[in-house]
């Protein structure tokens, strides 16, 4: 009896074992060893309890936290030279910073590099004395690009105890960050999202979500304006994923098309469903024969659609929001077509592409700390996240308030302008979003001759295949746009 069912089981289940292997990412993950483990004992006792504005709720005495070993009184330490108020995630010698990052999900190839870059960044900061005399300890947890796992990690890092972190220098993913947006506000925590939805700048959506650089919407306006000017175009096709990424990008592209007098010959906003058959979109594109295509998809989907349309004779000029394109696509058969037709739009400078202080610091830092790491553009994201976090924390320390609330206040301090040292336009977060949001972006020519498939950061000639065309620049459409809410407002 049992035998029969077993056999049936084997038959049915074996094909899915492979699936399970690929798909197992859903499980809960947490890990806090990835960063340099600085000190074993992290005292729960706040060093100087001045706490001027931090309303730290008494928190129902959390009976789960009873490890007595963790309480190391600060009385052995000499008094602090400057009085800095602290609450969670900060001790006399350590600052804990959280990264809720996708290390095993669909964006893992990029995010592991970003996290690695940040680890290198903070190693250098720590060697130079850290922040306010404290060493920075990164707490890296893997969300597997899964919302429930992200929330599990968040709960762990938001703990109002020695296990907590002071702020998040990265929160991977839009749905994930959105799911924590309210909690961030309630817990007085800041998070830098790995998402560039224009809605984050709207205080009603992302009050404590610090969006770095410009948004999909403004990037589309600038990119399309540049493309139209460079190619004497009169028609455009807009394609993109459904949802906050694709539709925010499409919204900006449509505003720009209207301002420029471009005719939208195919409106594929939300028509590209990731992972499904793209033939209908390709057919529409080929039939419409636009001069320009603005895409808001991901690299695999771009390759599929652009390759399909190219094979059917479409020779439009392409561009799209980051991360529609990835330089690794040059290693595929599509390389020559991309070189010929694609212009890359970004929010930041790219690897070794400009002579600015931030670039020198980053390239030298990566070479010193991660000499064998593969060359990549996303280390700029890591470095700029690092600059932003460090400058906010230094501002908070200068204000004498390294509490969570103090850090939030420091980020929104009118005196703080985050200096990205040329890697990206400088940024402030105080006042009316319409006044402070970043509207500049960059356009890069894709150039096969500057691409090295397996280069490392130590390799001087290693490149990601780009030449700067223009940037940072802002188009009239973006400059004149009145930001009151997200370009694309989803239901909900």
């Amino acid at each position: 009896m049992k035998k029969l069912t077993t056999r049936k089981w084997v038959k049915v289940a074996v094909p899915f074992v492979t699936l399970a292997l690929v798909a197992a990412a859903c499980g809960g993950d947490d890990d806090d060893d990835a960063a340099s483990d600085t000190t074993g004992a992290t005292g729960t006792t706040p060093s100087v309890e001045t706490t001027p504005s931090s309303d730290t709720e008494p928190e129902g005495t959390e009976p789960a936290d009873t490890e007595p070993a963790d309480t190391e009184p600060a009385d052995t330490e000499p008094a602090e030279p400057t009085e800095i108020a602290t609450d969670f995630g900060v001790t006399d010698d350590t600052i804990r910073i959280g990264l809720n990052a996708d290390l095993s999900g669909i964006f893992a190839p990029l995010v592991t590099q970003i996290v690695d870059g940040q680890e290198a960044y903070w190693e250098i900061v720590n060697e130079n004395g850290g922040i306010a005399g404290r060493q920075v300890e990164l707490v890296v947890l893997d969300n597997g690009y899964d919302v429930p796992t992200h929330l599990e990690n968040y709960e762990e890092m938001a703990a109002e105890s020695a296990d907590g972190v002071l702020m998040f220098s990265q929160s991977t993913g839009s749905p994930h960050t959105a799911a924590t947006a309210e909690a961030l506000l309630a817990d007085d925590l800041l998070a830098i999202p790995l998402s560039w939805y224009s809605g984050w700048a709207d205080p009603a959506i992302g009050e404590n979500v610090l969006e770095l650089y410009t948004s999909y919407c403004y990037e589309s306006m600038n990119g399309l304006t540049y493309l139209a000017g460079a190619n004497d175009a009169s028609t455009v096709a807009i394609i993109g994923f459904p949802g906050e990424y694709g539709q925010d990008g499409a919204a900006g592209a449509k505003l720009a098309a209207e301002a420029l007098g471009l005719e939208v010959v195919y409106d594929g906003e939300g028509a590209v469903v990731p992972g499904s058959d793209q033939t209908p979109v390709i057919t529409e594109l080929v039939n419409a024969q636009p001069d320009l295509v603005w895409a808001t998809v991901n690299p695999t989907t771009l390759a599929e659609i652009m390759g399909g349309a190219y094979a059917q004779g479409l020779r439009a000029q392409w561009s799209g929001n980051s991360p529609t394109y990835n330089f690794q696509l040059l290693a595929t058969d599509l390389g020559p077509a991309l070189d010929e037709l694609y212009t890359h739009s970004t929010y930041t400078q790219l690897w070794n592409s400009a002579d600015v202080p931030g670039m020198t610091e980053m390239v030298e830092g990566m070479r010193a700390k991660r000499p064998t790491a593969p060359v990549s553009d996303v280390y700029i994201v890591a470095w700029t996240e690092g600059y932003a976090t460090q400058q906010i924390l230094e501002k908070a320390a200068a204000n004498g308030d390294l509490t969570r609330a103090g850090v939030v206040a420091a980020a929104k301090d009118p005196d703080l302008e985050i200096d990205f040292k040329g890697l990206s336009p400088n940024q402030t977060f105080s006042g009316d979003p319409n006044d402070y949001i970043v509207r500049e972006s960059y356009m890069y020519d894709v150039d096969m001759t500057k691409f090295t498939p397996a280069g490392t950061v130590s390799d001087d000639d290693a490149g990601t295949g780009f030449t700067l065309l223009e940037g940072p620049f802002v188009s009239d459409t973006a400059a004149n746009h009145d930001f009151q809410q997200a370009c694309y407002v989803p239901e909900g």
Partner: protein
Amino acid sequence: MYRRPNFYTSYESESQMLPTYTKKVVALLAVSIMFLMPFSLPVIDQLPFVRFLGDGNWLRPMATVFIFAIAALGLNILTGMAGQVSLGHAFFMGVGAYTGAVLGGSPGGGLWGWGLPIWIWLPGAGVGAALVGIIVSPVAVRLRGLYLAIVTLGLVFVGIHLGNTNWGKKLAGDPGLGRDFPTYDIRLWKEDKPLVDVDNDGHWLWFDVSDTQKQYLFLGVLLLVFILIAKNIARTRTGRALQAIRDRDIAAEVMGVPEFKYKMIAFATSSFFAGVAGVLFASLAGKLPATQWSLVLSVEFIAILLIGGVGTVSGVMLGTFFVVLGPNLVEQFTVWLSDRIEQGGPVGSVADAILTEGPDDLGPVSIATQTPGYALNVFDWNLVIYGVLIIVFLIFEPLGLYGIWVKVRNYWKRWPFSY
């Protein structure tokens, strides 16, 4: 005859839920530990593994275990009891989640939501999923084995596609950001102050409880209810009919078991469990995009049944623990190993052989985030371990963890004549 195992004088005593004295005691102990685990109590604190799992950081994964167990119990009725393989479990969870969201969610922003209390939306989510299950079942009952798996697999993709349609967005919110789900708060009707507040820190009986502890306890109670339902179904006429169909459907029909009707019941019941678990899962997260209800989730339930053991409630519980907590435990183990390296000694050198700490260090497990060499990081290892385990269980222990336990138990039962 008193206290002789496997010797029953009546059908009632044979089909008891906990037939032996030992089982009653063990069940009572397990339930009390489960409920007292989150609290800092003298005896509980001394139990090493329990102390560890009851810790603040582990409560949320444990709550997830409870929800997954409810869903897995549902799949166990369909797959373990009735022998029908379904890959559409995630779809039914999604149906439940959005039924619950419409019934209990807050309206506004173009989304549907009626703001009803939990005693309507929670069963409602199950009923909604069960109805969809009944609608699907006429097709499904005509198929079995691989064909049924493919049909139910299709449901998952249909579901995700519906989430991208315009009315799908009214239900599920933005495809990228998702929608809000109702909280666990228990209300009589739509009053402002809930009767039982499950979502904020507070005070219950003698204990101060945090929101996470409250959710854990609430889900624990629900899990017990669903375990009772699942156990009882197995002991009824329906349960026996389903098992007859599983073992030989034609023979069952010859004996007068209406196959169509019972397969439909199995689908509906299984979907009910899935629907309730789906809305609980979404509600615990608070906000989820529609892509959450994907094939990955369905496969996870298949893995739970395979690893735990098909057909038994205990097996399902073991499997859920293993699959949901496994990755966390592996990572915890790696952290433990890297601590051992610092301490040195024989354990330290074993740990050193396993872990790769830098480019020149050898070992299969890397603790660096980016690993250009052959060493894999913990997260990749988790995927490998998961896949290998499924293969190993299929080949060597088709009855799963529960089968291992039965073997161990039987060995000692017959000791010293265990051959």
